[in-house]
């Protein structure tokens, strides 16, 4: 592929810095979402069990616990 010889040298994974930040930023934002989910799944205990938002929900929570 002849045209590859003309690729500019200051590229990261073929992208300039502005595009690369967007590219890596999207991946990092997804990692943030995953870490957030993992934190609330395995580390942080739910606030809601201690502080239900409505009486109806309190009943639901109790049912779920059962």
């Amino acid at each position, binding site marked *: *592929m002849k*045209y*590859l*010889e*003309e*690729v*500019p040298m200051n*590229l990261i*994974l*073929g*992208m*300039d810095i*502005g*595009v690369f930040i*967007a*590219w890596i*930023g*999207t*991946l990092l*934002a*997804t990692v*943030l*979402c*995953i870490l*957030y*989910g*993992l934190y*609330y*799944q395995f580390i942080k205990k*739910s*606030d*809601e069990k201690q*502080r239900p*938002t*409505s009486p109806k*929900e309190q009943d*639901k*929570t109790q049912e779920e616990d059962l």
Partner: protein
Amino acid sequence: MDILFFVISMVLFASIFIFLGYLGYKKTKTVEDYFVAGRKMGALLIAFSYGATFISAVALIGFSGIASVYGHSILWLAFLNVFVGIFIAFVVYGLRTRKMGLSLNAMTLPELLGNRFNSVKLQQASGLIIGIFMVAYTSAVFLAIASLFQVTFGIPYWLCVVVFTLVVGIYLIVGGLYAVMWTHAVQAIVMLVGMIILMVGIYTMLGGIGPAHEAAAGLTPEMLKSIGSPAATQAPNGLTSMPPVLSQPFMMVLTLIFGVGIGVLAQPQLITRYLTAKNEKALRLAVPYGGIFILLMTFTAFSIGPLCNVLMYQNNIMYPTKEVAGVMVANPDAVIPTIINELFPSWFILIFLFAILAAAMSTAAALFHTAGASIGRDVYEKSLKRKISPEKSIFITRIATFAIVIATLIISLNPLDVVAYMTAFFFGLMACTFLAPYTLMLYWKKTNRTGVWVGMLGGFLFTIAWYILIYFKTAPKIIGTPLVGNYMINMLDPIFIGLPLSFLLTILFSIIIRQDKDEETIMKTSFENI
């Protein structure tokens, strides 16, 4: 591809959704069931439903086409889609919206606003705005998908529109939000499969991430011109580089990124998803699922768009064109379908068509449901000024939804020029109208009815005026010449001015005019569990 095989697959596909509509009908017993799926949804269903609603066929086909013109700089929108559209949306808005929705017994965005500020008129006005503009937006979604099927299979446009509307209309009206969310799960899986194969296929053809991007970077304007790609002029620094600051391509990318990237926070059809959560944990756990889903949708679509230029150059395929007023112009919407038709096996063409169909159906169903609820529950039911039974409430909304489905069908069969601009219109309009009142309602206790009225209408009127008088895409079609000729202004999405204006007006009038006693009492109830 064999049309008969496609038709049989399509019938099976539609049958699954209609069956889920029937199951939704059996499960729908209360008003909450119809409007917010009984507030019983778990993390995965919320994430899939939110993602499938968010990502329409326009986002997959249209935006990857746009990426083929402006290059990878559009990846900033993918970043905002994940960070703002999922993380900020769920963590900053979703959790509070659900709590406030429970405290105020609200099931729609207009109802949340109306109950929070003790104003039926506020609920009706916002319901009317959502209902009217959502019909036009849904027509735009239909228009895009029906045109694609017409081009690919030669199936008449009207037949596509009628079949598509009937299938979505049936399962939605019958099954309510249960049916919508269950079908969303199926549609999301189809979309995931389609996009993953597409991404892997294209990167494999080009030798992996680095080589693929380097190949795109190496395409000179002359090479792009030789295949007829508009990227030759619209990506002046190359397909994998940012355009020069404040140049026309830069302004275009900027307006797309912020218009859609920030506008997502105030979409009524997405806000409904927060209200369906069975508990706070379900919303929190929807964040990773949603993040991964959006990554695989928009990040994939925006990454492969520019690479299509490389594939076209390597395989001697010309950039697709269409005829506009007797002149052949570049047609970015046809880029992905062209690449798939030319370079992928026929079994994948079928999968991809179903993925696009799923994307369009899921968005249309969510829009119909929200528009039906806005007109039926927020506008008509509130105008009755008396308490009605839950059965009657659901019946009214079913009738309203049916009317909206028919209205959309009529508009789609006789599309006006303005319909095509609704996709650009809608996100910005909803953001400038609702985002400021909605944000301040959730976070600022002093927000009051007057402030919300002024902020909402100020943002709404400003946006409409901007689209009619100034915005480069819409103003020339409406008034001929935009009032402002400078592209740095007329290419700006109204969100850049309309949103701060709406915030300013809401805050200013909430300070000037104090809350009355009823508002104060309701405000305390609203924040009780927050």
